């Protein structure tokens, strides 16, 4: 059993390193140009925020339309930590996550009494309140004019080098987020969270403190969304409350639903897909949204549960199948560590 665990860890670690090296090499040699490099980085940020939303919506079963609100709290608080308090980048990003987690805890309480549509409206209102507060807190946030001059990941002046460094930062955080969400879901507290989605009454009578785990899930989700927001701030170097309006939240819901509610790999696929499709459709100008909506309807018609449903693509299983075929069958896995990218 221990051997299995070590094998799993090594497979996943090497898979994430290999993916990174391949992407970085493609960027370095110019096969992926800077424009696409930027897009990949942005996709990474979308993946982080979408995974955080999937934790509440896909795994806990609580529809949230305020994820952009969480994101903006993370973005502004980390930007302020860097610009006003001159804290280092990593510290600021983590502060962004922690400040957002506090708000997640607060917004978690109303969710105990609200369900479904009512909760969605409440979280939507929350997102809008945050946006309006950001517009009016001009001294710190720059108000509607926006906040300029947020320090970047790297500022060497060499565009190629900068974009690779940007990409690496975001990539590391994407991997950390995937590991956090995956390990949480495949543990006993994670099963408690999923049981709330399945049947709240049954979960309660199985000895699970439903209120505690709902709030826990909201807090955790807010933390991750805050990290995503902080990366977003550093990535653009500029913040404006409009970036976090209601439709931004909807975008994340679209990614989660497209990928499959309750699927980590689905969210990753949909996150990358969404970012690219959004860019390709840019030449349609305003019709972009119409076409996007149509595409969404078509996908939902043919895959009503999203691309992956609640399934996962598991790298460990994949590798097992093709490299260690002789070891298959005999060993049952104690932990299902599921796929990374």
């Amino acid at each position: 059993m221990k051997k299995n665990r070590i094998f799993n860890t090594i497979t996943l670690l090497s898979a994430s390193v290999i993916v990174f090296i391949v992407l970085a090499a493609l960027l370095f040699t110019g096969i992926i140009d800077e424009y696409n490099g930027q897009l990949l980085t942005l996709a990474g940020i979308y993946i982080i925020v979408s995974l955080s939303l999937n934790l509440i919506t896909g795994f806990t079963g609580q529809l949230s339309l305020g994820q952009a609100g969480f994101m903006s709290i993370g973005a502004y608080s980390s930007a302020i930590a860097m610009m006003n308090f001159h804290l280092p980048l990593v510290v600021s990003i983590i502060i962004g996550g922690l400040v957002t987690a506090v708000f997640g805890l607060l917004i978690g309480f109303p969710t105990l009494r609200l369900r479904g549509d009512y909760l969605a409206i409440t979280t939507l209102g929350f997102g809008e309140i945050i946006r309006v507060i950001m517009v009016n807190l001009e001294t710190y946030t720059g108000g509607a004019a926006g906040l300029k001059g947020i320090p970047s990941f790297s500022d060497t002046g060499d565009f190629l080098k900068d974009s690779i460094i940007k990409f690496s930062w975001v990539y590391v955080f994407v991997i950390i987020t995937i590991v956090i969400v995956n390990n949480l879901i495949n543990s006993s507290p994670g099963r408690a969270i999923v049981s709330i989605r399945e049947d709240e009454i049954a979960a309660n009578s199985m000895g699970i403190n439903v209120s505690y785990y709902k709030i826990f899930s909201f807090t955790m989700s807010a933390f991750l969304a805050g990290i995503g927001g902080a990366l977003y701030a550093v990535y653009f170097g500029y913040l404006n409350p409009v970036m976090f309006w209601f439709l931004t939240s909807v975008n994340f819901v679209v990614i989660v639903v497209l990928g499959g509610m309750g699927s980590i790999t689905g969210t990753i696929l949909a996150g990358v897909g969404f970012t690219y499709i959004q860019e390709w459709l840019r030449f349609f100008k305003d019709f972009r949204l119409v076409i996007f909506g149509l595409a969404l309807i078509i996908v939902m018609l043919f895959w009503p549960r999203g691309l992956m449903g609640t399934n996962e693509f598991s790298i460990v299983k994949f590798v097992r199948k093709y490299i260690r075929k002789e070891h298959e069958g005999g060993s049952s896995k104690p932990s299902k560590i599921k796929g990374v990218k």
Partner: protein
Amino acid sequence: MSVMEAKSISIVFGGLKAVTNFDLKLGKGELVGLIGPNGAGKTTVFNMLTGVYSPTSGDIVLNTSREGHNYKSIIKLKPYQITQSGVARTFQNIRLFKDLSVLDNVRIAFHFNVKYNALQGILRTTAFYNEEDEITEKARDLLKIFNLQDKEKELAKNLPYGEQRKLEITRALATNPKVLLLDEPAAGMNPQETHDLMNLISFIRNKFDLTILLIEHDMSLVMGICERIVVLDYGQTIAVGTPEQISKDPKVIKAYLGEGV
């Protein structure tokens, strides 16, 4: 020595007196049946005993020690706290975690006894692996008793109806209860399945040292295994006694068949 006692509990919904002055003493190891016509308030009694509803008046006490007398009132506790104190239940309309595997359904019930926290789970510490191995093994042992061990990877919703009922009982047992409340365990089963279920219920009572209260409409099951039967009608207890006494009680016959029969 009683394990659980309901002392004159009543509940009123708006103007409707759903249950009035219900008394029940569950002795250790007893198997008691709760019967009554539709709408008599049987499930409401269950919901009060498990904390889903809190009674308008009266008290429910639970003996928390396995041997001695250490009664505590559970009337203010939430359902999950009552389960953690040792009262587990199943539901009339099956409430499994449908999209989860059979194994996960059972493992979830072990959750409140798990000693590692979320952080240890995320960091995959040794405590995580040890506990996971342990509860997985325990869950498999339980599934074996109910002959579900080959289906642990299947989704709960894909099981046949009878097995879903069995899985619900397995899941309830995983919370390590002292008192088990079964709400119509034989509903929808054919006579053969009902017969097997009867044997199974007697078996788990002895094996897990349980006290069982069950609601059932299938009289062959109730009369076959219950030592004592409580009959409810319009929220009031109309008869208490052994199966023979109950089957001859004129008030019970009247409640079921009406007057002039």
